């Protein structure tokens, strides 16, 4: 059992994700310097001992901003995943349990959402509702719903044909009792994997939205906006773009590796049989 959890991809993914979560947790209590503290005299310093990642055009410490930015990314992506899972999974279970019209409704609805370019619509959402972390969460979360609905419905549908579900029906259990008692626990692994992958998509989407100025508003530090700010100064202060860019890339990479590794470890189809 434990051997299956020892793939290098999974371990690297776990390490990077752990670093990201630790940074977000740390920022609640402490950052090397106050990220709201502006000190124009110390602006645009190259990376050094005092400022390992350098300072920006307001003299803020880039390392501190990246640590604090992790919290914003985490919050937005996590809540967006929770929205997707919380609405999508029950919809998928419902579609699989009822079949017929309910199934058509859920699947065609998700087709509709899939047909629209997610990030563009998220930009539209936040442009209409106004920029800010909460609206970014809603915009990203809405697009997670059909993803979870589909994954849940597909897996649940194949479980509904199994004999143990038939046995539960003979035992007089209703659709919801079976969905919650038998179906949901058996697809939990699959949903965890999907949640990890949607989490990485969420981090990327949040960075994208704040890059165009529709995510968390200043002074809340955000990786996407740091990239945007760095754009005009990239010629003489490249560290301003490199470090937030790396933070985004490594976090997304880590979460994807974690998701893939978990899928390999949890997928019953790959499970060795005795």
């Amino acid at each position, binding site marked *: 059992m434990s*051997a299956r959890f020892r793939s290098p991809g999974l371990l690297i993914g776990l390490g990077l994700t752990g670093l990201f979560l630790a940074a977000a947790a740390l920022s609640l209590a402490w950052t090397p310097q106050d990220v709201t503290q502006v000190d124009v005299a110390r602006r645009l310093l190259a990376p050094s001992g005092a400022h390992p990642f350098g300072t920006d055009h307001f003299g803020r410490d880039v390392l501190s901003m990246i640590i604090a930015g992790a919290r914003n990314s985490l919050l937005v992506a996590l809540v967006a995943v929770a929205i997707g899972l919380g609405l999508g999974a029950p919809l998928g279970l419902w579609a699989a349990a009822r079949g017929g019209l309910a199934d058509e409704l859920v699947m065609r609805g998700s087709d509709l959402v899939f047909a629209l370019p997610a990030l563009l619509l998220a930009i539209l959402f936040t442009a209409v509702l106004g920029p800010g972390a909460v609206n970014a969460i809603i915009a990203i979360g809405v697009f997670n719903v059909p993803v979870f609905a589909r994954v849940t419905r597909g897996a649940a549908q194949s479980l509904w044909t*199994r*004999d*143990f579900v*038939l*046995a*539960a*029906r*003979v*035992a*007089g*259990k209703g659709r919801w009792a079976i969905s919650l*008692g*038998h179906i949901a*626990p*058996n697809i939990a692994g699959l949903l965890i994997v999907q949640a990890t992958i949607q989490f990485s998509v969420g981090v990327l989407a949040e960075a994208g939205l704040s890059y165009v100025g529709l995510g968390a508003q200043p002074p809340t530090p955000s990786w996407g906006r740091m990239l945007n700010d760095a754009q005009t100064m990239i010629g003489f202060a490249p560290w301003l773009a490199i470090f937030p860019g790396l933070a985004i890339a490594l976090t997304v990479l880590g979460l994807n590796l974690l998701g893939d590794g978990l899928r390999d470890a949890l997928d019953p189809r790959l499970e*060795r*049989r*005795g």
Partner: protein
Amino acid sequence: MSGPLLTVEGLSLALDGRPLLSDVGFEVAAGEVLGLVGESGSGKSLTALSVLRLPPPGAVVTGKVSLGGRDLMSLAEADMRQVRGGEIGLIFQEPMTALNPVMTIGDQVAEVFRLHRGLGRREALAEAAAALARAGFATGQITVDSPLLRFPHELSGGQRQRVVIAMATALKPRLILADEPTTALDVTTQAQILSLLKSLAREDGAGLVLITHDLAVVAGMADRVAVMRGGRVVETGPTGQVLAGLGDPYAGIAVTPRPASDGSPVLEARGLVRAYPAARRGWRRSEPVRAVGGVDLVLKPGERLGLVGESGSGKSTLLRALLGLEAPQGGMIRLDGQAFGARATRGQRAAVQAVFQDPYGSFDPRWRVEDLVAEPLPLMADPPRGAARRAHVIEMLAQVGLPAEAADRYAHQFSGGQRQRIAIARALITGPRVVLLDEAVSALDTPVRAEILRLLARLSDDLGLAYLFVTHDLTVARAVTDRVMVMKAGKIVEEGPTAEVFAAPKHPYTAELIAATPRMLRP
């Protein structure tokens, strides 16, 4: 040629430190048929895969395997590839998964010649046509509707298995390994496929290892039998001797014919119709498929009724309707004279319970046995809770011959036979009066099957249960039922007391079924 063709000695296999095969040994001579028999999980298939050097990833294999004096274990992988398919032909249980769905069968058989003999496309196809013809396909000219140009999904199960056999025997291998080659097939098709296999092996003078859980299949086919249990070969010998040693596995089950109870039926169906919407073609749907077309069925209290038919005859659909899971489109079902169906009351459902075929699939892998067995309890008017619930479960487990500790384990920790005992305990916990058994013993090997049947017979006597045995296996129906119904294409074609139907079948289909059934002991 002197000496055995295939020798397996001291073959052991361990996976993650767990020994799955220990000290397996047997021999097969050229032209000989060896039956390798055992229940699922006894290591039969692992043995075959180890002989081919295709064990599951991570497995550690030790021991000696030699084919015609050549040691296979020390062969280079490139040479081994020539042995697989070239010298050893392999036939799997499920032909659909053994064939490539997007290649025509002609190309698939031809591929064997192209890979192993380096033939060109045209020559290979000609050889493929010959190989398919040998497997009973009339190929003839390569025209549009030649079987060579068909895809696997266009063929029936039996035809697909013929394609697999054509591929396996294309290069005239010295050894054929057939892993449950007929388990997925109907009785009538099974008989044809088995005789084809035997004649091909004889024609080529090849050794044949027939792996199966069904002793009856082996009885008519094998010269010698090796019986496997728990990863070991527990018995080897000439077929007649081994089978005689086992005796008639169904002896003592045969129910004393009960006097026909003239009470009112406990479960009754009249003119039952169950149809499915046909597949959509564009916008239009074609006529619905009638899986069950007007079936009458009467089950008296304590009666043991057999429902026999091949797969696709509508048995399982009928069963679901009788369980009140699916509403029939026509006809009616009555339980003790009261209407029964999709809107059945809890009390009614408690009276009709079921045991399903697959002992591996009928339990939620994440539930403990205690919860599994107790699952139908809420159907009872006053279900026991807490400690009383546990005591009740343990009592049920004891009734089916399982220890109290079983309650705390998971289904996958039990053997196939034990799982079916758990399934029976689950079916009995509400104190039902009717138990529907859907191929409940089909997946078990013969001795275990006999044990379960004996248990069912005893429970029926003790508790006055009425059974409906749904099965494709006539030997089972014959051994344990009082009355039997034969179903074909959604209709009951014959019905009568079991002994009478078997002694003098009236419908030609029943006669055909009886003739095709492999028999344990030849008269």
